[in-house]
Structures are given as C-alpha cells and as structure tokens.
C-alpha cells in the first residue's frame, strides 16, 4: 500500500499541473516540501498580527495597567467586577445598543427604499446612483462637523428653517432628549448610501425570468416584492445589516465629534468610555475592559446574524 502511495506521488510529481508538494515526502526536494508553509505564511502572519494585539488587550484588561504606571500587576477579573458593578456601564450598554439598533434599522429601511427606487434604468436613476454615494466619500468626522454647524442654534441653517414652523429653539444634540436622535440622524445620512449600494448590487444581480413570469401572470407589485424580491434580496440585506450593526456598535467618530459623549453622560457608549478611561484618564486596563466586553457583544450578534445569513442564502437558492 505504501509503495502504491509512493508510486502515485511520483507519478503526480512528473505531471505538470497536478503536482502536490508533500512536506512528509522526503524524496521531494526541500524547496518543494516547504512550499505549503510558504503559501500559508502570509495568512499566518496576518492572523498573528490580528491576534497578538487582541490577546494583549485581553491580558491588559486583567491587569491594573495605567499609562502613567507601567509597573502593573495581574489583578484577575477585578476590572470586570468593577465595571459590572458600575451603573455607568449599564447606561453605556443601553446607549451602545440603542444607537446601533436604531441607526441600522432606519438605514436598512431607507436603504432598501432608495435601492428599489434607483433600480430602474432612467436617466435620473443613473445620475442619482453616482450622487448617492457622496456622503460615504466624506470622512465621518468631517460629515459630523458639517452637521454640527448646521445644527448650531445661533448660526446653523436647520434652526433657521425650523423657525418657519416655530421650532427655532430645537437644541439637537445639546439636549439629552434629542441627542440620540441627532447623532443617529448623522449616521443615517452617512451610511444609508452604503446599504443602498449593497442592495442595488443585489437587485441587479437577480435573474429577470421570475419577475417577467410574475408580470405575465398578473402578480401585483406587492406580491412580486414579497414573494420574489425580498427572499432573493435577503442574503444581501443581512450582509448589509451585519456590516452596519457591527460598525455602529463600535461608533466613535460621530458621537465624539458631535458632543464628546455629552450632554452629561447621555451619549457615552462603550467606545467613548474606552477612550475617556484609556487615553484621557490614562487608565488603559479599565478602558480596554470596555472594549473587550464590546467585542464579546459584537461577536455574539454577528454570529447570530451569520446563521440567519446562511439560512437566507439557502432559501434564496431555493434549497
């Protein structure tokens, strides 16, 4: 049996295009035998490059490391214990989830609507498909600062316009009642085009025949949308939601540029807490604890969504 194996190897070795380098096959030259390792090398390096800082962050979260005192010691789960007994943490958890879910929900509904509207071959749709992505091309922090200026009650245009309906004193992100709405609005402005773009690509990759059959059979627009478009678009929709949800759970720039987490503690989500503790207050281990917990939440949510995505793909393929 062994001899057969060697014979097959030798046979494969001389056939161009079917050659399989085998590190265990001592008859192959060394340069050939190391080839599999060289091929997975970059992937391995990349994995180490990602895992090393992550592992280090987990480790630091188990210490009392502060930037001003590098002589740290291992404290076990003390940071986690302190965090979980701090009411600020639960407030931040609420802000993080409320921001992420509301921004993603609005963006998905709007993005779907825009994608359906632009999925027509009219001259206006062609122009709008290009113009639509402009907000995505601006750095989020710049986009936020533009909005901040527009929302400024004393000089901003929005309050001037709201003045016509008697709302010139609307305080946007400055007031606790409207702060979340204001930052979500900016997020929606920036990222709705992203979802539209993704869904538009999905819509344009769909086969035309089922839609033509439905039209011939006299199916209504709603019937076609519900039974054909939506199931076939579902994998794209879920991918878009995964991207946006992960991103908005980690949102820093929009909130930081708009209010720095204020007013009071109103907009202090996890990334802002991590920044305040880790950088401004130099308590790196405590700041990282926030980030590790955020990572766990992101991981959990994305895993659930990936399962849904797999199922949606199967449904779309009619399996």
């Amino acid at each position: 049996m062994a001899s057969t194996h060697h014979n097959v190897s030798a046979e494969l070795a001389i056939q161009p295009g079917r050659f399989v380098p085998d590190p265990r096959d001592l008859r192959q030259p060394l340069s050939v035998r190391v080839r599999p390792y060289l091929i997975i090398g970059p992937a391995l390096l990349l994995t180490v490059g990602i895992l090393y800082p992550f592992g280090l962050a987990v480790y630091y979260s188990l210490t009392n490391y502060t930037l001003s005192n590098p002589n740290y010691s291992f404290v076990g789960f003390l940071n986690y214990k302190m965090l979980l007994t701090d009411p600020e943490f639960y407030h931040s958890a609420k802000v993080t989830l409320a921001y992420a879910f509301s921004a993603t929900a609005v963006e998905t509904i709007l993005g779907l609507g825009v994608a359906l509207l632009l999925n027509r071959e009219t001259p206006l749709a062609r122009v709008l498909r290009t113009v639509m992505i402009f907000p995505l091309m601006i750095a989020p922090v710049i986009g936020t600062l533009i909005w901040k200026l527009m929302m400024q009650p004393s000089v901003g245009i929005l309050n001037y316009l709201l003045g016509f309906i008697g709302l010139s004193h609307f305080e946007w992100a400055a007031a606790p009642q409207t702060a979340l709405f204001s930052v979500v609005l900016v997020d929606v402005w920036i990222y709705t085009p992203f979802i539209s773009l993704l869904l538009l690509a999905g819509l344009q990759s769909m086969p035309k025949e089922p839609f033509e059959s439905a039209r011939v059979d006299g199916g209504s627009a709603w019937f076609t949308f519900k039974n054909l478009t939506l199931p076939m678009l579902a994998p794209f929709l879920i991918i878009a939601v995964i991207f946006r949800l992960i991103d908005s759970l980690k949102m820093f720039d929009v909130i930081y540029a708009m209010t720095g987490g204020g007013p009071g503690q109103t907009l202090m989500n996890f990334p802002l807490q991590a920044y305040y503790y880790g950088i401004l207050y130099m308590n790196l281990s405590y700041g990282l604890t926030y980030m590790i917990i955020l990572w766990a939440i992101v991981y959990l949510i994305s895993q659930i969504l990936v399962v849904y995505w797999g199922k949606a793909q199967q449904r779309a393929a009619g399996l």
Partner: protein
Amino acid sequence: MRKRRVVSWIVLALALMLVLACLTTASAAEKFNWKKYSGTKIRLLLNKHPYTEALLGNLKTFENLTGIKVEYDIFPEQNYFDKVTIDLSSGSGSYDVFMTGAYQVWQYAPPGWMEPLEPYINDPSMTNPDYDWEDIYPNLRKSDQWNLKPGNPLGSGHQWAIPWGFEANALMYRVDMFKKYGIAVPESLPALYATAKKLNNIDGSGIAGIVVRGSKNWATIHPGFMTQYASYGARDFDDKLNAVMNSPKAVEMTDLWVKMVREAGPKAWTTYTWYQAGSDFGAGKAAMLFDADILGYFQNVPGASACSGKIGWAPGPKGPEGKLVTNMWIWSLAMSAKSKNKGAAWYFMQWATGKEHLTKAAVDFAMVDPVRKSIWENPKFIAKMKENYHFYETFQAIIDNCSILFTPQPKFFETTTEWAATLHDIYYGEDAKKALDKLVAKINRMMTQAGIRKP
C-alpha cells in the same frame, strides 16, 4: 577742596564699576556659545494656536543663531494632548520639546516623562546671561513648579516647564451695547446674572446675554467658571483631598452660574467649546463673554469679526467678600525626559521663552499675553494693546491675583470632565445640590481607587 576731590574719586570709582559691570555682562553674553549644538536636529510637538504661529514666524532666527535644525508637528487642540500622552507614554522620545499647560504637568511629571529644568536654568554654561529668568512673572513660574505630591500647592519642587504665553480669564463685553443701554460693568456674580438677563434678547435682537464654554470637557471648568467659583470662596478639594464641590458656597455659586447660562446663555450651551464661544461673541450673537482675555482680542482685531473694535475688557465680578482671584491657562514649553538632544532642546526653550523672541512675538505677532514683565512695559506693546478698550488696564488689575486655582493632583482631567458633565445635568433640570453630591461621591471613589485619597 579736599572734600570735593574725595567726592570726585568716589564718583569716578562708581562710574568705573558700572562700566566694568556692563563690560562683564556684555562679554559674558558675547561669550555664551549659541553654536554649541550646531548641526543637531530637534523635533517639536506643537498645538495649533496663534502663539505657535508667532513662534514659527520667527523660527529661522533661532536656526541661524544656533545652527540647530528644528522640525515640528502641529495638531489641533482637540486631539493635541492625546498625541502628547501617547507619545510620552510610549517612551519613544520622538519629540524633544512639547507645548503643555500646567494641568498636564500633574499627569506627565509623576511618571517621569518630563525633564526637570532648573539644572539648565541655573547652569551658566547652558543658559545665556541675558535670559533673565526673574523677568517672567513669579506666579507664572510657580505654576509650572510642583513637588509631585497630590494636593501640595504649586511653587515648590522641580521646574517642569517654562512659561511661554498665557491666557488670563476676564469678562469681555460689547462696549457699544453697554453705552447704548446705560449698563455698568457688573461687579458681582448676582450683578453679572442680572446684566446677562437684561441684555438677553434685548429689543428682540435674539442676542444671548452671555456666552461661556459648556462642552463635556475639562476646558469648560477652568476659564470663567473656576475664576468665579474660587472668587466665591469655594474650593475643589480640601486639605485631605476630599472633593468639596458640594459645599454650601460651591452649590450656591454653581446654581447661580448655571441659572445664568440657562436663562441668558446661548442655546445648545452643552456643545459650546472655546471656538463656539468666541465665534458667537465675534458674530454679535452674545453681549458678554467670560473666557480667556485673548479670545476677545482675536475677535477685536480690525476686520476679524462683526464686532471688531466694539469689545471691552473688565477683570470680572468679585466674590461675596469683595475679592477676585483669576484662574489662568499657561502655555509652557517642556522637555521630554527621553529626549536624545537635551542640550539642543534646552537651547531652543531658552530662546523661545527669552526676551528677544517673546518681545518680537508680542509686538509683531499675536502673542497677546506675554509672560515677561519687561514686555508689558515695552512702549510699542503698550501702544498696541491700548487699542483694545481696557485690555491693558484689565491685565494690570488681575495679574497679581492670577494663578492656578485647582488643587494639583494627577486625576485633574477625570475630575473636571465629570464636573462639566454635572453642570449639564444641572442645566437640564437636576437639583444642584443633589447633582454635586453625586459628583463628589464619584470623584472621592475614583481618588480612593487611584490611591490618592484615603478612604
């Protein structure tokens, strides 16, 4: 006759001594070797500020004088100190000299990131004899001196940074409006509140009575608020480092301040930084501004804003006991302890904080509050500043009572950021006493956890 001869001899001897003294100083000054570090390169970490522009505008003079090459990076203020913190904590020593404030010294000096500077100042081979350290106002020099013990006052221990350009907090107001409505400059906090209310939306103009900073940031606390807070007789910490922002005086003052801002301040106050406060005032959207005196100056420069030429300065309201103490911000230059070019770095620092450069920066550029007494006595500078209504007089009135009014401790940024967040809570309706009690409990817990305060 004999008597006259004796007098002549004495006069001659004195004259000789004077000439000799001048010659000695002159020769010492000439002897100072500015080229000692010629060919060296140093790197600066700078914040974007008009004072920085004054420095960069004259940088060639330093390079020509010393042969030292200077490279620099400039960051906007919002992120500047993050960059300094990260660079210093990394221990890379990639920058030799950086701009700092006194509050940052409390964070950067204890871990050993800053180089003590008095050995350089006191070394005649390293510091040119014309430097005149004593010419820098003593309260400014003290602001950058600390013995690293949390709670201990400034003014002892090492000199961690050199004062370079500062900002004294003052009340700025629209002279034209005050004249038009016959309003006197307020002399107490209740009077300031009443004046702000009177001017707020006066004649339906939509103008705010007063504008002050309000964002969730330490910088909200230190200008007008801290000046009035301390003048009111309130403190941030007691001698045992217990937070006392909920003392009766503190509560009274805080309540009044927030009431003033709520009833006569700008809308969206909780997002107001130095930039919004200054631009609102310059755009004629507010009748008064309580902030760094230089903020009004830049709005008052001809052509700079809608209100240029209409701005006046006053020291600000006095406390209930008739006393005004002014908090200040002091831009200083510091040396990284990890600098590989300490000699050249010090040469740069002494030049940048020396008389010659600072006089030029004050007279020809926009170094509005120079740290040297001699410059405030310079006729050209006096003439320049007197073009601004009562700017010079205000400065002279407050300089002697101008100091850092916070208790030095490494958790300054945590304390003041939380303090600003508490002002927001009060602004949006929470009872001042309850909100400040919560703040005190939080700060005390944080100080205990950090091992600074005994439980």
